[in-house]
């Protein structure tokens, strides 16, 4: 393991991402070869109005979730930390589910996404208020766990009290997480939040590195640990909130992407942020392409596919840990 940035490998990931973006425009129920992209017929409409926004969202949602995972693992100094346990994603889920529950979400993309984003922002604010200005990692995690529990149970309550079977169906379908049938409306809505959120997280690199030595040493070196926590909550709130608001919940990317990049870029938290974002984008985009071309009558949900990928990953980790412990 090295602490130097392997630029060559990163370039390879960027090239891979570019290739996948191209493939993402080609692949689907209808295959559209390169030469038909600008054909000014129905195929052009499929590219411009369905596949392009879907591709952009996959890239940014993957990048957001993975970078948030890397930042959050760096902050908590826990390689098993997932931004999901902060409760921001479940707050966003609940906000979106509420609009579906009231029967409005299904009619308007903007309402659904706004509900999700509002949920994320309220959750983020609550988290900051609850974890206080001087709290430690432990109280912060407890606050996140509390928020997560409340938001998840409220979502369950909405399902329980749903007025019609259609509402239940819509909610469940949305909760599974998918990029299908997204338009440029979702892109315009979510992209600014995701970009700003990731931008904020990039500023926390120096603090995350210093935290490697523990909170008191980091503070003794003049690092404002509390300010950094605020930035992390804000960055994760915006990026994860926006991702969940437009795609539903897509798990595991945030948890396992940082693990995939560490053997190549080293364990220094700041060094994992951008590589995680790139690899996260590749994973979600690849999974979304796989979901589209999977031969089944009902399209597989992206969130489900990611969860299925997550299982073997944990098994591999477990075997790895057992090998080193034994």
């Amino acid at each position, binding site marked *: 393991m090295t*602490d130097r940035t392997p630029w060559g490998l990163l370039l390879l990931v960027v090239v891979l991402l570019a290739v996948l973006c191209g493939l993402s425009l080609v692949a689907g129920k209808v295959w559209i070869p390169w030469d038909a992209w600008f054909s000014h017929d129905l195929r052009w409409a499929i590219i411009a109005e369905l596949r392009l926004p879907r591709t952009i969202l996959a890239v940014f949602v993957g990048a957001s979730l993975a970078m948030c995972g890397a930042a959050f693992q760096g902050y908590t*100094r826990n390689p098993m930390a997932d931004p999901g346990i902060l409760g921001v994603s479940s707050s966003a889920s609940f906000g979106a589910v509420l609009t579906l529950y009231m029967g409005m979400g299904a009619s308007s993309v903007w309402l659904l996404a706004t509900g999700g984003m509002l949920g994320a922002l309220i959750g983020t604010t609550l988290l900051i208020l609850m974890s206080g200005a001087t709290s430690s990692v432990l109280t912060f995690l407890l606050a996140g766990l509390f928020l997560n529990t409340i938001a998840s149970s409220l979502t369950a309550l909405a399902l329980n009290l749903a007025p019609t079977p259609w509402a239940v169906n819509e909610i469940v379908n949305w909760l599974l997480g998918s990029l299908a049938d997204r338009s440029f409306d979702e892109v315009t809505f979510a992209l600014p939040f995701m970009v700003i959120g990731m931008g904020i997280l990039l500023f926390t690199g*120096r603090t995350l590195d210093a935290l490697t030595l*523990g909170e*008191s040493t980091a503070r*003794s*070196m003049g690092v404002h640990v509390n300010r950094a926590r605020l930035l992390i909550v804000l960055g994760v709130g915006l990026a994860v909130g926006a991702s969940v608001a437009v795609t539903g919940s897509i798990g595991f990317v945030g948890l396992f992407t940082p693990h995939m990049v560490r053997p190549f870029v*080293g364990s220094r938290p700041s060094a994992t942020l951008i590589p995680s974002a790139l690899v996260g984008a590749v994973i979600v985009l690849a999974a979304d392409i796989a979901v589209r071309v999977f031969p089944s009558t009902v399209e597989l949900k992206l969130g489900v596919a990611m969860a299925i990928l997550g299982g073997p990953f944990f098994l591999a980790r477990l075997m790895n840990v057992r090998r080193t412990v034994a």
Partner: protein
Amino acid sequence: MSGLIATDVAVTLGTKAVLQGVTLSFAPGQVTAIIGPNGAGKSTLLTCLVGLRRPDRGTVSVGGTSLAAIPARERGQTIAYLPQTPEVAWPVTARTLVGLGRTPFTGARGLTAVDIAAVDRALRVTETETLAERIVETLSGGERARVLLARALAGEPRWLLADEPLHGLDPRHQLDASDLFRRMAHEDGRGVVVTLHDLHVAARVADRIVVLADGQVLCDGPPVEALASEVLERAYGVRARTVPGQSGPLIEILGRHD
């Protein structure tokens, strides 16, 4: 006014008065050891001196300026702190870890040539150059302690405050680290303050010993004075006999003081 000065420092944790009005002044170019029984308030005093904890009463100042008035980054450049059980969260190399000691000086761009030169110097004086590319987790206790010390030295601080830095080291490594502390103070003119449990180590390393008991300064003076049997009896509640030895006073614990 170049010293590190604590004036009437008091700290209460929960209902326990951990420090009850401690007034001490530390001089640069000197190694000061703080000794005392468990729970005497040594670590709490150290966190106050570093500026990590604001005392409930009293002030700490360095070079005539109150610690509370110094920006965190500047404070980090002046005073280095080595906690009792230093944590290393990720499998990073020793060089990367020592590089983190430059945090008070670095911006968003990472380590500059000046920083790298300082890291190299810190690795050299702690004799950890050969360990530089090793992962810290894989080092032995003694090697790890030296690398963590190098981290604290990388900022080339005017003050080094270390909580039990010699704990768990074998005699040879204790000796090496003690010599390093003395060189830092006597040759480089830095102020070194360490808390210690081992009285013999304190006798060897310190120019001056502060005995802390029940949150108060019981004795403050050169090793022969601070390690006298009457002082140890009062501080630790043991009967002790102190005789002059080759490298400093030798202490024999005879039994409980009843």
